[in-house]
Every structure is written in C-alpha cells, then in structure tokens.
C-alpha cells in the first residue's frame, strides 16, 4: 500500500511525491506531468528485472562454497567450437565447465584461459550460510530443448545471514 493518502488516485501520488522503484532508474512521481509520460516511463523500464526465466530448477546444488556437481546431462548435444558436448559441470562460482569441475573462486582472464568455460558471472558465490542455493535442470526455451542454471538470490564469500545484497542471474543453453 502507498502511504498517507486515501482515494486520491494518481493526483495523491503526485502530492505525496512518492518514490517508486523498479530496479533502476528511480523516479519521483512528482516529476511525472501526465499519464502519457508515466506510460512511456513504465514501458522503458518494464523489462528491468525480468530477464531471468522461471524453471530449470529440478535439481539443486546444496548450499556450499566452491563446489561443483558431477557431470550433468544437458538433454541434448551442443557443438562448443568443434567439440560435441552433452554434459557439463555446474560450478557454484557462477559458471559451467565442459572439461573438469572448476573450484577456483577468484575469476581469471577468460581470454587467455585453457579451460572450457561458460561464465555468466564468474565470482566467489557462497551459498553455505545465506541466500539461496544454485539450482539447475533441463527445460525448454522458445520450444527448443534447453538446460538452465539458476543463481538466484546467491550470497558471496564469506556467506553470512547479515548480508542483504544478493545477485540474481541465470545461464540457459539452448
């Protein structure tokens, strides 16, 4: 509920100078001069925070720090630069690898590595004591077989319940 006013509708919002937030940017409603402007602003910001797709969560990598899954079947074969792969290691630190599990927590240069890696956010994710654990699984995207890994509301090392800042990101292979 919005604070203060009752029954004032949009004008009350303007009077209240109420701030609404939808990710970024922040906008003071008092600066919105008409409904058309509001509509245009909503259209421009509606996509923020809506990129992560639901699903791909049939399996879980239990709360941990720097751990990985065993080889996990994708449910289909991908041709990753000439090497056909049908399984990946899901690594807790924001990436999947094809060759071996990856326990490294400090991100290395992806332009000079000898690892076979796809990294949506290579950093020291730590789900051991706070936030949500990593989930993954098969599914579909736009009607095609897909495999997803969800790092949704993950904490960083040293994982601690006092942390209020979380990351929400996702990898989907189609």
């Amino acid at each position, binding site marked *: 509920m919005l604070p203060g006013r009752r029954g004032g509708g949009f004008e009350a919002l303007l009077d209240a100078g109420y701030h609404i937030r939808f*990710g*970024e940017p922040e906008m003071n409603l008092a600066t919105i001069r008409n409904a058309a402007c509001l509509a245009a602003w909503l259209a421009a910001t509606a*996509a*923020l*925070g*809506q*990129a*992560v*797709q639901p699903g791909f969560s049939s399996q879980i990598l239990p709360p941990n720090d720097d751990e990985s899954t065993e080889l996990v079947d994708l449910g289909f074969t*991908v*041709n*990753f*630069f*000439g*090497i056909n792969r049908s399984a990946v290691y899901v690594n807790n630190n*924001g990436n999947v690898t094809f*060759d071996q599990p990856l326990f490294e*927590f*400090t*991100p*290395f*240069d*992806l*332009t*000079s*590595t*000898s*690892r*076979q*890696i*796809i*990294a*949506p*956010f*290579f*950093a*020291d*994710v*730590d789900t051991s004591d706070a936030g949500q654990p990593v989930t993954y699984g098969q599914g579909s*995207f736009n009607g095609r077989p897909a495999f997803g890994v969800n790092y*949704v509301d993950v904490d*960083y*090392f*040293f994982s601690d319940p006092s*942390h209020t*800042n*979380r*990351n*929400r*990101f*996702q*990898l*989907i*292979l*189609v």
Partner: protein
Amino acid sequence: MFNYDQIQWETGQASGSDANGRGGDSARVGYSNGTGAAGTFFELIGSAVNGAFLDGGPNALISNRLNSNINGRYIFQARDGTIIAPNLFDDADGQWINADDAFRGAGEGLTFDYFPSSSLLFVAWFTYPTQPIAPVPGEPNDVGESGQRWLTAQLDVADNIAVGPVFSTTGGAFDAPRSGVQRTVQVGEMTIELTSCISGNVTYSLLDGQIVGSFDIMPFEKRSNPGLSCD
C-alpha cells in the same frame, strides 16, 4: 544466454572485496573453449572492472543487453560450433569522430549507415581544407567554403571489420543537379574496425599510397559525454 535481474555484489572476500562484496578481483562474464584460438573466447566489457557490472554501474548487467530487446538478457548465437560474435556495426549508425582530443572542434568526422541485408557500410568521411577558400558568388555551390572536403566509402563488413574502396565525388551543388558535371572516382581504400560499441580505428590509403594513415574513432556523443557506455 545470460540473464540478470539483480547484481548487488561483484567479489568474494577471499578475492579482495570489502565486507559488502565490492572491489578486489571482481566478476568476469564470458566464455572460452580453452584453445586461445581467435574467435573462441569472449569477455564482456566491464569484466574485472570494480563497480562496472553492479546495478547502476557503467556496464550494469541488468540495464544492458546483447542480441536481445530485454534488459539484462545477453544472447550468444551459435552455429555449427562457433559462437557468433555480435556485429558491432548493427548499432553503429550515426556520427563518429576522430578520438584524438587534438581534433576537438576540427570538423573531421565519419557518418556510418550500415545495411545489414547486404553487410555493406556506407561511410561519409568529411573534413575541411587547410585554408578557407571563398566560394565564387553566383556559382551553384556558393554555400560554405569551396574547399570543404568529403569522401565516401562503401565497405564490406565481416567480423567487425569493414574494408573497401573510397570515392571522391566532384561537381555537385546543393539542390542543383548538374548533369555531366558530377563525377565520382575511386581515390583509395579504407578499413574501419570497431573494437567495441564506443571505440574503433580507421586505416586508409589514398592516391595510390601517397596519403596513408590511421586514427582512432569514437561516437560523437562521447565527446560531450566521456562516460558514455555501451547501453
């Protein structure tokens, strides 16, 4: 496909971050097949740059996109085992300028118009003469200095590099077609490589190699907004 809804930390505390997960050896985004061969690895701009990927940062993951119309969604398209790097020319239409600050206000620039269906980049490269030369009163082109210069180029684009011939057109006038007077001849070749959506370089060879050189370019907007990002 990489999707991002919220990025509020960038580093773990064992990688040099502060208590809030910021600073130090911060996150990297990309992929590699481990061979180091050209085109088999990629790292997103903002990787390892403190603050870049965070919400509200200069390369905020949730506020940008790649091959997508959804903020926070980055799509890498793969065909036959090769991930297709984004074609930076797709979003390069408009005004570019010499990035050297010495050229501030010097009136040199390049206008891009990219035709995706034919992978052709049309370029207008313009500058001014070293000395102003007054136009001849009464002549059809008596607007501006008669020595004002521009060249055009039609370049084939592949792998973020555009290569092709440079032309000079003479004899024209504003809103005054003059049949038989206008003439277009090739005067050399040029190469334009975009290294990001806000940077690139130009190399050229004109008049059978008598005039050669290279310079860095950036979008015109970056002159007045040095913090311009790839949003």
